């Protein structure tokens, strides 16, 4: 009886082995990636759709076998916008053996810069802070830096303002993220950009900006350039609207025209500020869903496929997350097609080679992604949008700010 049992079990195990071994042999490679970002806590209004964009795109890659039998496994961790937790998550990802890292905030990108250098791992953060690239070889910005965005907006003001030198104020987030572009805009002004910076305001957690707006108005400020997240901008726009200070057309005399960089705009701003968001000028390198195209179709289809709500589906931060996932997938695909082993080193090489004829068009942006030894900013082109009837509409053609090169 005992002997029979042993034989039976031996056969059973052998059968399982025969059935599973070929399956294992046939299964493709799994490439591990990591993303640490603020899904909850400060700036989670941007981080939440961003994480969904990343998650959905990698699921899409795996479901549609874009990499054949190989799969991408991207672990997404919430760091609540705290650098200490980001560091812990990053160490965890390294323990898991990641070959590519997606980061989020400016603060943590700067804090982990040395670690990225030592680990020699390519990193795509959601932060477009130009300072990320200083003394760094492994950080790549997905799109034009905040500095480029703010300089682009300032150039637009300078070119389109009628009568005299335009007076502008900067409304910024009280952090490394917010302060980053201020010096660069000042450098551009010193280099000849014809505007006068009257005041730089670091907003706190104010629920009322009336006094600030009155002060700016009394100083003759006609343009407010914002570089922060949506909610403080919405508060400011609502207060300006109550005071009757919002310009109904660009540069309207006696009124203020509000403009903002990537994280100030998008559908969330319209949802928060309502009608007060009318005539808000916004720049980013992403194509928004109100301007349909190949990229936005993919974005909406992806969101639908993975049961995302309307808000996430139409968020430019969802597109933002999708785009970094697209770039990561593309470098893996390219390395694989060349028969290279997928490692940190080969992916880094592929990123550096992403230029000229090898530039990558993710379709979710207004320009191609180009990286090289000397250029670590992906999409250099920006698009200006303006809110008309509660919808962001394109204003003019995509452009590249002139003064970004002049101040280098």
């Amino acid at each position, binding site marked *: 009886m005992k002997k029979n049992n042993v034989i039976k079990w031996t056969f059973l195990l052998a059968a399982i082995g025969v059935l599973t071994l070929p399956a294992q042999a046939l299964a493709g490679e799994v490439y591990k990636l990591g993303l640490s970002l603020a899904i909850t806590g400060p700036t989670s209004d941007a981080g939440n759709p961003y994480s969904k964009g990343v998650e959905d795109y990698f699921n899409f890659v795996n479901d549609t076998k874009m990499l054949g039998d190989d799969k991408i496994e991207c672990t997404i961790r*919430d760091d609540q916008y*705290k*650098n*200490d937790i980001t560091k812990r998550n990053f160490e965890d990802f390294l*323990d898991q053996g990641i070959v590519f890292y997606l980061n989020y905030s400016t*603060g943590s990108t700067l*804090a982990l810069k040395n670690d990225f250098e030592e*680990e020699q791992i390519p990193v795509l953060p959601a932060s477009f802070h130009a300072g990320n690239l200083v003394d760094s070889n492994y950080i790549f910005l997905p799109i034009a830096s905040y500095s480029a965005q703010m300089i682009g907006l300032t150039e637009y003001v300078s070119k389109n303002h009628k009568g005299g030198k335009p007076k502008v104020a900067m409304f910024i987030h009280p952090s*490394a993220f917010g302060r980053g572009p201020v010096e660069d805009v000042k450098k551009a002004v010193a280099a000849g950009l014809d505007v006068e910076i009257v005041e730089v305001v670091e907003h706190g957690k104010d629920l009322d900006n009336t006094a600030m707006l009155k002060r700016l108005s009394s100083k003759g400020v006609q343009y407010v350039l914002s570089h922060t997240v949506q909610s403080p901008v919405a508060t400011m726009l609502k207060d300006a609207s109550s005071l009757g200070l919002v310009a109904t057309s660009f540069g309207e005399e006696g009124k203020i025209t509000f403009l903002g960089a990537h994280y100030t705009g998008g559908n969330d701003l319209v949802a928060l500020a309502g009608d007060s968001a009318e005539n808000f000028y916004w720049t980013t390198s992403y194509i928004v869903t109100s301007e349909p195209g190949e990229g936005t179709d993919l974005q909406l289809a992806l969101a639908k496929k993975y049961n995302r709500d309307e808000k996430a589906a139409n968020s430019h931060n969802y597109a933002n997350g999708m785009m970094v996932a697209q770039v990561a997938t593309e470098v893996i695909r390219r390395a694989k097609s060349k028969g290279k082993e997928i490692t940190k080193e080969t992916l880094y090489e592929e990123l550096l080679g992403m230029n000229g004829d090898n530039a990558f068009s993710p379709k979710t942006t207004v320009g191609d992604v180009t990286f090289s030894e000397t250029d670590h900013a992906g999409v250099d082109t920006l698009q200006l949008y303006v809110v008309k009837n509660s919808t962001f509409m394109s204003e003019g053609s995509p452009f590249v700010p002139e003064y970004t090169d002049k101040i280098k």
Partner: protein
Amino acid sequence: MSSNRWLATGNYFTSYTEEQRVFATSLDRTVMCVFLCILFAWPLFFNVGNKYMLVIDNILVAVIAVIGLNLVTGFAGLISIGHAAFVGIGAYTVASFCRVLGDSHLVITHCWPLLIVLAGFMGALFGAIVGLPALRLKHLYLAIATLSFQMIFQWTINFMDFFDQGQTISVGRVFWVTGKVARKEHYLFWYYVILVVIVIVSFGVRNLLRTRYGRCLVAVRDNDRAADAMGMHPGLIKVYAFGLAGFCAGVAGALHAYLYRGVGFDSFTLHHSINYLAMAIVGGLGTLQGAFWGPLAIRVLDLQVERLSEWVGSHLTAATNLTTALRPLSFGLVIVLFLMFEPRGIANWWRIVRSYVKLWPFRY
């Protein structure tokens, strides 16, 4: 005291000297020695990933900070809600050297033990300065004074260009007798360094509490007028308590700076001060063991809640608000529950377990 120092039970002492022993019995001393050996030896046998080594190191840094907070709040009875700022003073002492000399200067990379001690003294100096209002203020009013220091600290760091307006100031890799401490051994190296510091600080505090300089803290806490009548100077003792707390916090801050290889403003906010206070309460105010239990309990709870939030978030995609609320909710709940049902903290559970083991098989 029993004549057999291995089998002593109860609290029968025949002299003050006996009562003031660091270890009541030889068994206690042996257990402590074995425990320390285990603490020093386990990393040689178990390979823990960098993530968990970082978590462990982080807990140990918090232990040093909470030992300091326990001195001022637990033993001296002075509430401080600016403790993270003192930790920040220590960290920014190291960061200041990095800013002036460069993050890989010899002073940073080779003289790090001196810098850690210096950071402790800077913490002590600021602690004593902040303690000055304690000459006139008590209770809630003193709490507000320490809170204001926290605010001043945050404001200063956040706006001064010298401190890079709160952005991370990087700290170079240190050297040991074997050469540069490489990335792969970084967390293990700092584990041993922090452990050694904990052992020194703990024995220091334990011994301090056996002396009149330590007992005067308790005397002032229990009744400062009576202490005054006994010839002590309550005001000076309060300032001295803040100085001691500041020293421990400063050392913890410097260790934090070296451990994370950078100093950023967001590690020393009011939220962190509240966290340290919670650790002291949960661990057990006025006990040395409490300073070990508190950080361990709060950090482990934090990790578990984080894991739970992640799990809830992945299964209920619409429950983001719930996951956002889980952390502060659990954190607040733990403090309230401890205050209600075990105000003496985990240290009291430890005391109960110890006495049970000591008296076993007798009940009392």
